[in-house]
């Protein structure tokens, strides 16, 4: 099974899955079977590509050329490999969790839900493997459009308003800013191919380049930089597996992945350094990072707090990209993985608490630890990973980003990162502390016990994943270093 | 006092008739009056073409006697174009009037303002 056949397969399988789910809407059992089968299939294909990429190979597949210089083509490089692995890996767990959750909460028209689910993974994998900015833009739009029905799933007035902001911001930024940026790049640099070291070096003057950088950074709405982060909390109206998908696996990761890809492969790190706007965007990211954490602290709703925490964590990666140092980019890449595992565990726990105890507010969680020990323990592990405490994987990525900051000469940023770590503790630990140490309030019904097994298994697996990543960070780090040929420290 | 001392008088008259026709089309509310204005406006266009074909000392482009090299004839091309344009004008007028009749039957009036009234009430 040579590699170039694996790429179209890894994208064909979710599409076929979506189709088969749509067709077998009648029998839930068959449909869920197809769901899990396609998730596993995708993961297998992506895994198949890993050995060649680790060995430094770049398998690629050319699909179609629409216009001279503009074609849909795919090639796998380490950053894309990592994102695809994370996305398809966590996808299996999310699917199992979603089936359990949907059965638990008896949601209606689940067929449409699961079909859009698989189309979203198709788009995520496609973005990971995009060879040029045009293919990435196409699948970026497909991802926005396919996740719209998921956000607007409940169909009530509130869901409709949330979905409207969701789509408004995402489509607005992509058509309004990203499209002109892309066309300008095509016009000035002559091509949109992702090449190590970037394509703008000799072609685009720094002044125009800095303006383009602004267009790109704010154009990629999914990276949720202020003021374009509104869509993320607005998407909270969606059911929990969707917010897990949105906020941990596919949508946000696609955003920051595109930021990393654009800055390393379109601009190129050393060209990025010469642009004065890279510092500007870096400080905007830093501002987003801190203000989102402050806002998260005031939120009493658990899912809203996690949403704002995601906004601030995303800015870590944007910050890393803007530092324009190889160390920071490696840290950013690793952070995609660490944050994914950490955040998805938190979302799974929030979902499990909702399904089992119908509690959404943090002050209602007093004494829940006695009733749901596993969920809350997994919540603790997830929180520690997001904070970046030692036994969890989150530490390494923050470590590398800080090293990158020093390497890029912005020592001040280490202060910002430290303050943000303190803030993370301030808003992630209280729910755990309340659940374990405080007695349950008087009138709580006795019948609360652990969430159904279908929810419990995925969240404990992801928590363990976050833990093992602490020890297993090295292969990930080496894979990231292969992005920069010759560096390899 | 030869004919060409008229010089540009023809063009001025064409311009004035054109303006009168357009004024009637734009300002008048009555639909039949606007159709008449339209015909006047088209008449001005015909006048422009036919003033072009006149040649000093020439006669109509019909060879009653076989043509000698010396004599001059008016230019036949604009006449052909205007023959076509006249009948186009009458065709459009006929259709416009037929539609006006139907509007009178449906709305009971052919005044722009009254028609808008009837539409608003309906």
């Amino acid at each position, binding site marked *: 099974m040579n590699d170039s056949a694996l790429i179209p397969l890894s994208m064909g399988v979710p599409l076929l899955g979506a189709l088969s789910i749509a067709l077998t809407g009648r029998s839930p059992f068959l449909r869920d079977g197809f769901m899990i089968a396609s998730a596993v299939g995708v993961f297998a294909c992506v895994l198949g590509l890993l050995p060649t990429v680790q060995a430094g190979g770049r398998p690629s597949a050319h699909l179609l050329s629409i*216009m001279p210089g503009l074609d849909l083509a795919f090639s796998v490089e380490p950053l894309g490999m990592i994102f695809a692995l994370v996305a398809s890996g966590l996808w299996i767990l999310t699917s199992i969790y979603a089936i359990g959750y949907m059965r638990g909460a008896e949601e209606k028209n689940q067929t449409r839900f699961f079909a859009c689910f698989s189309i979203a993974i198709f788009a995520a994998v496609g973005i990971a493997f995009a060879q040029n900015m045009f293919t990435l833009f196409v699948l970026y739009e497909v991802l926005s*459009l396919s996740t719209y029905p998921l956000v607007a799933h409940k169909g009530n007035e509130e869901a409709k308003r949330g979905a409207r902001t969701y789509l408004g911001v995402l489509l607005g930024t992509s058509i*309004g800013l990203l499209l002109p940026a892309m066309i300008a790049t095509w016009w000035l640099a002559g091509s949109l191919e992702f090449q190590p070291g970037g394509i703008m070096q000799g072609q685009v003057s720094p002044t125009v380049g800095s303006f383009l950088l602004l267009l790109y950074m704010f154009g990629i709405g999914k990276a949720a930089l202020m003021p374009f982060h509104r869509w993320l909390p607005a998407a909270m109206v969606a059911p929990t597996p969707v917010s897990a998908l949105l906020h941990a696996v596919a949508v946000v990761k696609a955003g920051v992945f595109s930021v990393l890809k654009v800055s390393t492969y379109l601009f190129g790190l050393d060209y990025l350094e010469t642009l004065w706007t890279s510092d500007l965007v870096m400080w905007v990211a830093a501002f987003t990072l801190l203000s989102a954490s402050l806002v998260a602290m005031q939120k009493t709703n658990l899912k809203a707090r996690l949403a704002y925490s995601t906004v601030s964590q995303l800015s870590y990666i944007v910050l890393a990209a803007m530092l324009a140092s190889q160390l920071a980019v490696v840290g950013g890449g690793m952070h995609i993985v660490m944050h994914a595992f950490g955040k998805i565990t938190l979302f799974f726990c929030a979902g499990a608490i909702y399904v089992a105890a119908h509690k959404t507010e943090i002050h209602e969680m007093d004494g829940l630890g006695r009733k749901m020990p596993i969920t809350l323990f997994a919540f603790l592990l997830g929180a520690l990973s997001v904070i970046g405490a030692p036994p969890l994987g989150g530490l390494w990525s923050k470590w590398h980003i800080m090293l990158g900051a020093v390497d890029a000469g912005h020592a001040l940023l280490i202060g910002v990162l430290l303050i943000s770590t303190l803030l993370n503790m301030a808003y992630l630990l209280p729910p755990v502390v309340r659940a374990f140490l405080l007695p349950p309030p008087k009138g709580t019904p006795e019948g609360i016990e652990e969430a159904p097994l279908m929810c419990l298994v995925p969240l404990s697996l992801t928590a363990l994943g976050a833990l093992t990543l602490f020890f297993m960070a090295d292969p990930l780090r080496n894979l990231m270093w292969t992005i920069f040929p010759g560096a390899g420290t | 006092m030869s004919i060409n001392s008229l010089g540009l008088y023809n063009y001025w008259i064409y311009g004035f008739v054109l303006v009168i026709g357009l004024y009637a089309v734009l300002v008048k509310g009555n*639909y039949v009056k606007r159709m008449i204005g*339209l015909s006047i406006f088209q008449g001005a266009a015909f006048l*422009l*073409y036919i003033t*072009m074909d006149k040649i000093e000392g020439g006669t109509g482009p019909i060879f009653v006697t076989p043509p000698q090299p010396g004599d001059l004839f008016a230019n036949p091309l604009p006449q052909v174009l205007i023959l076509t344009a006249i009948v186009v004008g009458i065709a459009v007028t006929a*259709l416009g009037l037929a*539609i006006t009749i139907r509007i009178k039957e449906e709305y009971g009036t052919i005044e722009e303002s009254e028609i808008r009234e009837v539409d608003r009430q309906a």
Partner: protein
Amino acid sequence: MSLVHHLPILVVLVPMFVAPLLAAVPSRGHLPWLIASLTSLMTFALAIGLTGQVLAHGTVTYELGGWPVPFGIGLAVSPLSALMLLVITGASLMALLWGPASMTSEVGHQHQSLLYASWLLALCGLSGIAVTGDAFNIFVFMEISSLASYVMVAAGPKRQALTATFKYLITGTVGATFYLIGVGYLYMMTGTLNVADMAVRLADVSSTMPVLIASGFILVGLALKAALFPMHAWMPNAYRFAPTPVAIFFAACSTKVALFVLIRFDFLILMPHLPGHADMLIGLLMPLSVAAMLVGSTVAIFERDLKRMLGYSSVAQIGYIVLAFSLLSTAGLTAAIVHIFNHGLIKGALFMAVGTLVLRTGTSRLDDLPGIGKTMPLTTLAFCLAGVSLIGVPLTAGFISKWYLISAVLEHGSLGLVLLGAILLSSLMAVVYIWKVVEVAYFRDPPAESGGGTPLGRREAPLGMMIVLWIVVGANFWFGLDTRLPLGLANMEAPLLMGGQR
């Protein structure tokens, strides 16, 4: 009599030949529709053949009556005319194949033969304009197509169709006569009527004032026919009250034919020889087109009637085309030509979807169609896909035109940025007024009709309509992926028209 040699005239001759026959035949059942569709199919095939010839040999010429060109009338089929022919005959074919049920339900059985005869005459008129190379001949065929379209719009079901037709008639005739006067001035200064010959003889015209007036008259006349911004009042009502198949046919191609003539006149004749003309073109057309884009989209957002909304959206799209060619650059011209082709597809699909909704529910007002997405899922999905193409999401035809338009605009530095802002704002507005429909269609539950199951009269459209609708929506995506045809023709035409300029 080799068929290939006579192709340019046959494209006009076939509908011209059948129309009088069809009018004389008393109309029984679907016979007139069948004859019209077969003729339209044959014309479409001829157009494809002609395009093949043009792609192979460049501009194809044909002398009528055997007389050499400046003395007789000559046909000149340039790549742009071939593309125009494809749009016209394609639009007519899809509207006809889609529409018999809708036409009968809106116009009733009697006098259908007259209606389909005028349909063929409109088709003959429009393709006559596309192929001819003679300025006065364009006026005659413009009159044929206009008169035939007045007849068809007047056949609309509601009584407002009559007033809409009257306004359309007045505006159209004033526009045609302005064009006639413009050609008169050009003839006065050059002595010839053939477009190519006129371009040659304009070089040695000393007094430029009459020629400037001629270009002014032609510009205003054709802007009136093309419903460019300040003179677009007639279009939304004409499209709304006309029978739906007629609206589909005209929405897809009729206004763009006037733009085609404007492009030919401006670039072939006036640009090379008239210094004043270039800045007049930019100074006048560009602000108008930007205004058209913004006003058209804004009004479309607040318009509650679907057909009028699409009418105003057409005003905005015509603004795109005019903006593209008023950039006076090869890239701009290519963008204009490609968008003429793509807009025909997009608007045809959108109008067809709305027509299917109107056929089943009897109303085109958005507020009377809540939850239509559930009762007529396939049609509404087709509308959304065509809407997505209108917005210009990648992989659709709309995206290709937007891509070329933006890259053409970027060539103009700071002015380009302003235009870029206008284009993006207008396409974001398009997102709003398409999504307005999606929300009403999908997020409101259909009215609880008395009968059980799908509410009465709200079942899916007949199979024939669905097939044609989905073919056109598919074409939207096909030409989003495979752009060789429109691009090939556009790239062949742009250097011809720019004539050695930048």
